[in-house]
């Protein structure tokens, strides 16, 4: 028997909202696992189920639906917390589901309550509240209407009307919307159509849910019964994550890892350079980051023995392990990556999109301040104007959450080459292109040709 404890809610939230405090729920373990299972199945099928209370349902039955929803998610959250690799998967699927439900809900108050929960009650107001507070009439003063500017086919009419309604959020909570001038600003309040904030809201939800998942690891650590309960669920998600969502195949991107790229550290993407630096400084990385770095190095051609040496030298020699001891212990994961242990799977490195959602992407996860400092130091030999305009461009792109495009812009500063699609899709793509630029024979010929002139 497991009990989910309750806090009193200050505002009423919709029952599909998984960050909601669950209230007092009692479930027995067998059902609990079943709920989690159902939820996983729906994620696999891509079935965006909606919870709306039908008029005919009895109170008790409705309670069960809620318990399934909140309880099922809660168990998934616990299961994912023990493994950072799969928590990325959970964040991604829960994020998609959240977005769908938020956008398709036809209850406007429901949306407002979700926003208040995400951004803090003091940072969200209805237009009516704002009008009362400032003694104005925003709609009249600025000649606003709720009629959409363009046609949207995807949603029903009622939904659509909702999406074009406006609410007010403190401007500093939604920088990307301010940046794009998609809000009417009044005294620090961004008066904005729901349709304009959908992506920002989703990102905020994903950020918060991944924090909550991280925190739930504590429950599992403290309770060995719980640890046993979640085991089969964890296993199921792991299998799933392996087969479906994670580890994008390189052939999707129209190139394959080149064999010698790994010898040229200057061709590594910024995320990997950072991981190497952290490894050097701290002596270790989080498990998930080990995985990202390990699969990357493998894919740019580093042989397993070299990689074992690399990890030994960079990460652990200060701990006093001998190489053999190291191979037996930490080396396990690296051999795993090369398919020499475990299920014998030849693992691929994650795509940028996956890095952004659950691994480490330099542009998505590092503070803007630090990125600009880094750039100044790394490219100090380039013209100052060039650096400044690059930093400026990159920050503009980052605040609009287009991290892979920011990486392409960084690539341009780094190599002088433009990525045609405008975005980096894969860490290995970054490296092979940079390698082409700096180290292929064709390029060398050109350089020497220039000298002869």
């Amino acid at each position, binding site marked *: 028997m497991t009990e989910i404890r309750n806090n009193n809610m200050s505002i009423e939230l919709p029952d599909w909202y998984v960050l909601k405090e669950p209230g007092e729920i009692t479930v027995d373990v067998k059902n609990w696992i079943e709920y989690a299972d159902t939820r996983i199945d729906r994620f696999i099928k891509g079935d965006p189920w909606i919870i709306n209370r039908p008029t005919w349902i009895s109170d008790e039955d409705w309670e069960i639906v809620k318990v399934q929803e909140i309880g099922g998610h809660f168990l998934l959250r616990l299961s994912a917390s023990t493994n950072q690799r799969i928590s990325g998967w959970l964040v991604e699927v829960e994020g998609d589901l959240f977005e769908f439900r938020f956008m398709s809900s036809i209850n406007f108050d429901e949306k407002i309550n979700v926003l208040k929960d995400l951004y803090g009650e003091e940072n969200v107001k209805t237009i009516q509240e704002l009008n009362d507070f400032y003694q104005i009439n925003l709609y009249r003063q*600025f*000649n*606003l209407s709720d009629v959409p*500017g363009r046609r949207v086919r995807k949603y029903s009419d009622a939904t659509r009307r909702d999406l074009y309604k406006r609410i007010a959020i403190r*401007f*500093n909570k939604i*920088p*990307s919307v*301010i*940046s*794009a*001038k*998609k*809000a*009417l*600003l*009044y*005294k*620090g*309040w961004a008066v*904005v*159509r729901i349709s*304009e904030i959908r992506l920002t809201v989703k990102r905020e939800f994903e950020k918060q849910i991944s924090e909550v998942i991280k925190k739930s690891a504590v429950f599992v650590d403290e309770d060995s019964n719980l640890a046993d309960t979640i085991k089969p669920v964890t296993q199921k998600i792991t299998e799933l994550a392996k087969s479906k969502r994670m580890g994008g195949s390189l052939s999707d991107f129209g190139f394959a890892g080149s064999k010698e790229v790994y010898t040229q550290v200057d061709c590594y993407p910024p995320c990997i350079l950072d991981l190497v630096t952290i490894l050097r400084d701290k002596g270790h990385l989080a498990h998930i980051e080990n995985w990202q770095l390990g699969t990357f190095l493998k894919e740019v051609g580093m042989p397993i023995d070299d990689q074992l040496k690399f990890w030994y030298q960079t990460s652990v020699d200060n701990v006093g392990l001998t190489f053999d001891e190291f191979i037996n212990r930490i080396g396990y994961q690296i051999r795993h990556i090369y398919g020499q242990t475990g299920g014998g799977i030849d693992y691929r490195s994650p795509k940028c999109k996956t890095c952004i959602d659950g691994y480490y992407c330099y542009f998505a996860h590092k*503070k*803007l*301040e630090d990125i*600009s*400092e880094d750039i100044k130091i790394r490219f100090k030999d380039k013209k100052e104007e060039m650096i*400044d*305009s690059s*930093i*400026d461009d990159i*920050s*503009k792109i*980052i*605040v609009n959450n287009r991290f892979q495009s920011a990486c392409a812009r960084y690539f341009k500063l780094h190599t002088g080459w433009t990525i045609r699609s405008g975005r980096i899709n894969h860490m290995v793509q970054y490296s092979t292109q940079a390698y082409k630029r700096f180290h292929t024979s064709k390029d060398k010929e050109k350089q020497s040709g220039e000298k002869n002139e």
Partner: protein
Amino acid sequence: MNEELTPEIISEFYRTKFPLDKFMAFIGLSDFKNREFGFVVGENRFIRNISFENTKELREFMATKSVKHAYVGAVYEQSPSRYSPIQKIKWKFREFIYDIDINDFDLVRTCGCQGYSYCTDCWSLVQDTVLFIDETMRQDFGFTDIIWLFSGRRGVHGWIKDKITNNFDQAQRVAILNYLTMVHDQKRTQTIEEIPNEAKPLRDRIYSIIAKSYLLNSSEESLVEIGIAKKKAKDIIQRVKTSSEFDAQTYNLIIPSNQTVRNKLSHEIILKRYPRIDRKVTMDTRRVSRMPYSIHGNTGQLAVVIKDIKSFYPDSAPNVWDALK
């Protein structure tokens, strides 16, 4: 310039006339020890990562070293020094600052001035920019504690001192900048953004402050070139000159409704007169900027607070020789 700016004069100014109290009131008393300062000393040597135990030390430093330029930066968790430079210590907060310089408008100045020279015509670009940003900060963002400082040469600095801005990270600062920016890549391609639909107050402000100055400075011929009939052009200029209150409504009333003409005109208005800001200064939370009330080492002028930008001209700003008289 009046006379030569000697180390003795600088030293005397910082010892006897520099308004330390006002300066402290400006940056706030808290965390003084952890505030970064930067100076140009001796033969143009720029030094950073400097902090002081108290204001006495600060005054003493500036006087004995006869600092040519003085700058103030962010506050950190520890006192910045040579041994704990700002890259190695934790950033705590920084005011939100704008830097506006007349030479940012070089590509669109038509009066013939370039670089540091100015006349009342082109200085009005800076004046409008200040008015525009000031109003945007107050009306749109709800800030209230805004001070404009003379940079000491040909520009002004806007300090938004509302507490909430101190902790803004770079993303939040960039967002405000992007909201304000209509001319991209302003030193080269000068790409103009379309006038926003949702950001109505910003749009209305363009049609009042910026459009008014543009039309006041336009000739009939230039409006005709855009596609406005001669008689109408004459009428427009007349109306702008005589209307006491020029706002977005007036603009919409007097400008012909032909969409092509309107688009062309607003493009011109923005290109020629819309605010141009040095983005680096606002974005970079670790940058140092000119210390309020200090001497500009090249002109001898003082970085004073500007009370009314409409009547402020660089040449009329006080200088160190006046101060010592």
